[in-house]
């Protein structure tokens, strides 16, 4: 449980920072302090977990979610997770502090730390999750937050957009491979661990790590390759490395955090996590080693060529990631110690260097190395941070980076294979290039001559705190092996090991010094060297080629698109019809169907039903054959009423009531809306369909054919369903027997308000969302845009009846006679009374909160019809739909949550009158104050408000400017 809470903290922080009434009172500096303190606290908590992990080996916690499907939220904290967790929270705290001074604009800063905090939560979830599926979800979350952070300035910066897109495409494609690989892995682990069960998936890492014959499994080749692909793309390994330099358009704190210290190490984390069961197979080790070494060399080689400070750091990050991957790939996990030292060292020096680059960018406005120079006097803190961090990167004794390089060289020297020489050459070359890049960082940026007169905008002195602490880490951690580094590493490295900062003047030490010197020589000849660096093929070019093919395919396919929605529908439904016929489904259904002839001895209720069915069909056909929209709308109303009567005959009084009310409302809405649509537009379509017959006869036949096939299929399907009904084996029996327990007579009402209350809550949410959708559409979408010129319709003679109705609704004055006015005045209070009665006594008769809401809504809509928008609005000042909706939803949610306090669970049934001891008093009025009653009240209020929004949105006069609309409604 505590691990779940721990992981939730950054997400909650992000939510909190995004909530208006929380963030508004907090200014930029308090947000900075808050975020960095939170992450520092998380860091401290993880340190506190250290003894427990030492003792238990691993802490595993599970919150059951869907135990029957084997899906749970599980968390797993072992040494590996702890190591990564410490980096994420520790570096995170410093980055959050830094970000407070990096951004000048408070709003931008707030937006940035929201996403950064969400990212940190996702990253913690990656390393702490104990389940492959949960890890995968978190993995994708890091990709998405990274996408947002890279494209942070995307609104003004095309490079940022492209970089973000590139990163998302590459890591996303890798993740697709990864999920397949992980699912296969868990299936394979299931087969190994539970041979007696088929199709058992084992998703949690703790169990997967027990499946120690995994490397001999038949599917090994496939899932190992897929998982490798996922990790390689995430950790920017060759040939997928190119997205990382592209990601440098992110704000620098994000680059330092995501693209250097944490996210790019997710792939490495995955490799290290699965290594214990995967490494005995040659495929795993040799792929990691090969790809890692190539990446290491390519990254280091390209780094020195970069003129952009962040580009240089990005490529050298690529190189270091390659080195770590190669180390994990060494046989028998002999490189793990070196890999973890490298991870820690790299996180410290590289994020410090990134932060320095960001500060320089912030102060001078440029990151181009050839424009910088001589910054030492201007930025002394940054200078010393760079000296320490860059030398740590080069591997100067006795900084932390030196330890990383020593262990790296040591591990590689002990790797005995026929190609050891080649491996050592690559390693030495790459580290020499890295050393060269480090010298360039110090000399070309801070020493040397200033090449340009740059205006320096001094940032706050506090900006140096984060980088300085990171540099102190690089400086001291190497010296503090015993107290700090070794205990953490001992947990993460499965074997016992020795670690010394200085192991004597052995060959490794000499090699290390030689590399430093070689790097210096390279540094001296850098001008002529850099010019010669070229590479025939770049991953970026391949990516661009690929994207251009995708775009070409897109434009080609676009030629086949008509753009007419109707034809898409024709194709979709036509395909359905074709499949129904060709696959034989329809003929099978028909063949297997024995039509029971209607019983000749029909009762009167049956006759009534038959009549009503006839009415629906006739009215339905009428909606097609009448030309005028108003008539079609009224015919539609007839269908609704006839179905309502069928409900009544079928002994469903509640449903019948709702149906009748809703159909009335729907018909009113159609007619209302017809008045808002210009008559000539409607006339044009009527004319072209009926008088001029623009439509081809073939098109008519096609539509007719599709509808007949689909109608036929529905007919056969319903017949099947109707004639094969189960006999009284339904959960409904249980509802009938238990409705008494919730003090309701009406079982349907009891199901809606009590047994399935959560469904109803969601239903009301859907309804109000739809209402808000209408509001948004009509309030915001009204501006005429696009190239389609308003057509000057050739208006023929307006059909008489049609025109008069349109005029009547457009101009409400003619409806506003003294009689109609007095009717609408009387109807509203009566409707409210009926509504109240329906809510209070809904338990013992038809009607519930919903019908109450619709009843009142209908009465209000009558006011709008009769009096027109303006007068209705001014006479009903209390009717403010947006507020009413909010009130209803708040009551509903509070009522759903309150029973939790009483120990009854979400939406539990609480009898408030008994709890308050007023049962007898209210009981004498025939009332029971229960949670369901309050729920019904909430539904009534919310529905009334939702309807109000819809009515006001549709009744709002169109000829006015749209600006006043929002204020008018809310």
């Amino acid at each position, binding site marked *: 449980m505590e691990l779940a809470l721990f992981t939730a903290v950054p997400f909650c922080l992000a939510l909190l920072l995004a909530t208006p009434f929380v963030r508004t009172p907090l200014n930029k500096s308090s947000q900075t302090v808050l975020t960095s303190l939170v992450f520092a606290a998380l860091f401290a908590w993880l340190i506190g977990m250290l003894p427990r992990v030492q003792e238990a080996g691993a802490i595993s916690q599970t919150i059951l979610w869907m135990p029957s499907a084997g899906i749970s939220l599980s968390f797993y904290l072992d040494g590996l997770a702890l190591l990564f967790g410490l980096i994420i929270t520790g570096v995170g705290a410093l980055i959050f502090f830094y970000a407070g001074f990096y951004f000048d604009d408070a709003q931008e800063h707030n937006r940035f730390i929201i996403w950064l905090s969400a990212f940190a939560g996702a990253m913690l979830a990656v390393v702490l999750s104990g389940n492959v599926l949960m890890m995968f979800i978190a993995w994708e979350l890091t990709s998405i937050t990274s996408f947002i952070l890279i494209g942070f300035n995307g609104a003004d910066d095309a490079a940022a957009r492209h970089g973000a897109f590139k990163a998302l495409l590459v890591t996303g494609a890798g993740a697709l491979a990864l999920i397949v690989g992980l699912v296969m892995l868990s299936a394979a682990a299931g087969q190994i661990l539970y041979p007696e069960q088929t199709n058992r998936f084992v998703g949690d890492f703790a169990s997967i790590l027990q499946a120690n014959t995994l490397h001999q499994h038949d599917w090994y080749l496939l899932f190992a390759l897929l998982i490798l692909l996922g990790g390689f793309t995430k950790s920017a390994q060759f040939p997928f490395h190119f997205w990382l330099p592209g990601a440098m358009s992110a704000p620098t704190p994000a680059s330092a955090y995501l693209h250097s210290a944490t996210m790019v190490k997710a792939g490495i984390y995955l490799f290290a996590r699965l290594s214990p069961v995967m490494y005995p197979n040659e495929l795993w080790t040799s792929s990691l080693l090969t790809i890692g070494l190539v990446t290491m060399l390519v990254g280091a080689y390209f780094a020195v060529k970069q003129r952009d400070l962040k580009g240089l750091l990005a490529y050298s990050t690529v190189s270091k990631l390659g080195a770590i991957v190669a180390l994990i790939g060494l046989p028998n996990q002999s490189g793990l110690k070196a890999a973890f030292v490298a991870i820690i060292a790299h996180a410290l020096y590289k994020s410090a260097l990134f932060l320095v680059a960001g500060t320089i960018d912030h102060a001078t406005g440029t990151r181009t190395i050839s424009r910088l120079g001589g910054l030492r006097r201007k930025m002394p803190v940054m200078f010393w941070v760079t000296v320490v961090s860059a030398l740590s990167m080069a591997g100067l004794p006795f900084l932390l980076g030196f330890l990383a390089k020593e262990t790296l060289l040591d591990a590689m020297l002990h790797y005995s294979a026929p190609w050891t020489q080649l491996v050592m050459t690559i390693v030495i070359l790459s580290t020499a290039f890295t050393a060269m890049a480090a010298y360039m960082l110090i000399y070309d940026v801070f020493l040397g001559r200033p090449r340009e007169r740059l205006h320096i905008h001094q940032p706050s002195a506090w900006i140096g705190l984060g980088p300085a602490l990171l540099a102190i880490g690089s400086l001291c951690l190497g010296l503090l092996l015993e107290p700090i580094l070794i205990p953490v590493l001992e947990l993460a490295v499965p074997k016992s090991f020795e670690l010394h900062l200085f192991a004597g003047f052995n060959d490794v030490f000499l090699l290390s010094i030689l590399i430093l010197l070689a790097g210096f020589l390279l540094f001296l000849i850098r001008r002529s060297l850099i010019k010669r660096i070229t590479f025939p093929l770049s991953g970026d070019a391949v990516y661009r080629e690929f994207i251009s093919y995708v775009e070409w395919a897109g434009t080609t396919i676009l030629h086949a698109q008509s753009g007419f929605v109707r034809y898409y529908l024709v194709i979709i439904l036509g395909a359905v019809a074709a499949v129904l016929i060709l696959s034989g489904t329809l003929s099978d259904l028909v063949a297997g169907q024995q039509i029971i002839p209607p019983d000749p001895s029909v009762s009167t209720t049956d006759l009534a039903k038959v009549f009503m069915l006839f009415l629906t069909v006739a009215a339905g056909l009428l909606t097609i054959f009448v030309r005028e929209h108003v008539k079609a709308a009224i015919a*539609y109303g007839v269908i609704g009423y006839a179905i309502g009567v069928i409900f009544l005959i079928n002994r469903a009084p509640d449903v019948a009531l709702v149906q009748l009310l809703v159909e009335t409302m729907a018909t009113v809405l159609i007619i209302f809306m017809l008045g808002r*649509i*210009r008559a000539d537009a409607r006339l044009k379509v009527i004319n072209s369909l009926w008088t001029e017959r623009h439509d081809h006869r073939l098109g008519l036949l096609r539509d007719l054919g599709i509808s007949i096939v689909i109608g036929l299929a529905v007919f056969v399907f*319903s017949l099947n*369903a*109707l004639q094969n009904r189960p*006999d009284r084996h339904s959960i409904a029996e249980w509802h009938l027997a238990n409705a008494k327990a919730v003090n309701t007579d009406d079982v349907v009402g009891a199901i809606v308000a009590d047994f399935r209350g959560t469904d109803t809550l969601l239903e009301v949410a859907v309804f109000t969302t739809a*209402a808000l959708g209408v509001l948004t559409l009509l309030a915001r979408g009204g501006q005429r845009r696009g190239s389609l010129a308003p057509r000057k319709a050739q208006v023929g003679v307006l059909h008489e009846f049609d025109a008069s109705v349109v005029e009547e609704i457009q101009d409400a004055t003619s409806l506003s006679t003294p009689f109609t006015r007095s009717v609408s005045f009387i109807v509203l209070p009566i409707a409210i009374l009926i509504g109240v009665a329906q809510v209070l006594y809904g338990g013992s008769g038809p009607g519930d909160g919903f019908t109450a809401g619709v009843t009142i809504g209908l009465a209000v809509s009558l006011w709008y019809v009769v009096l027109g928008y303006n007068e209705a609005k001014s006479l009903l000042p209390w009717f403010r739909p947006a507020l009413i909706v909010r009130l209803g939803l708040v009551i509903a949610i509070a009522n759903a949550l309150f029973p939790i306090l009483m120990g009854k669970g979400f939406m539990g049934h609480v009898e408030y009158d008994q709890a308050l001891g007023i049962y007898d008093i209210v009981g004498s009025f025939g009332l029971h104050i229960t949670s369901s009653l309050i729920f019904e009240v909430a539904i009534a209020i919310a529905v009334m408000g939702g309807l109000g929004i819809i009515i006001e949105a549709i009744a709002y006069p169109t000829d006015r400017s749209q600006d006043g609309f929002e204020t008018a409604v809310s």
Partner: protein
Amino acid sequence: MTEVLFALSIGILFGIGVFQLLRRDLIKAAIGFAILFSAINLFFVAVGAFEGDFAPYVSNVEAGRQTSDPLIQALILTAIVVSFGSFSLVLGFVNIISRRYDTVDSNDLNKLKH
């Protein structure tokens, strides 16, 4: 009994709804959309697990009367509400199309392509 007729009406109503959706007139398409909903609701009420001669009330159950299926009724209740919500959204769409492009003929709208 009336099952065949029920199924027939549902089929015809469904066909009518689909036909309206396929035609050019957007207002009639909206009506067709609503008819589809009605057909589905009709199907639900017809397909309830059991029929009875009395409404599903506890008092009827206690009196030993055969009631109709309450669960399917609760389901339709929800379905009606949600379909009304989507229907008003569809009307909003038609309204906004007519305002923006000055037409209710779907043949005048090929904006999906660009």
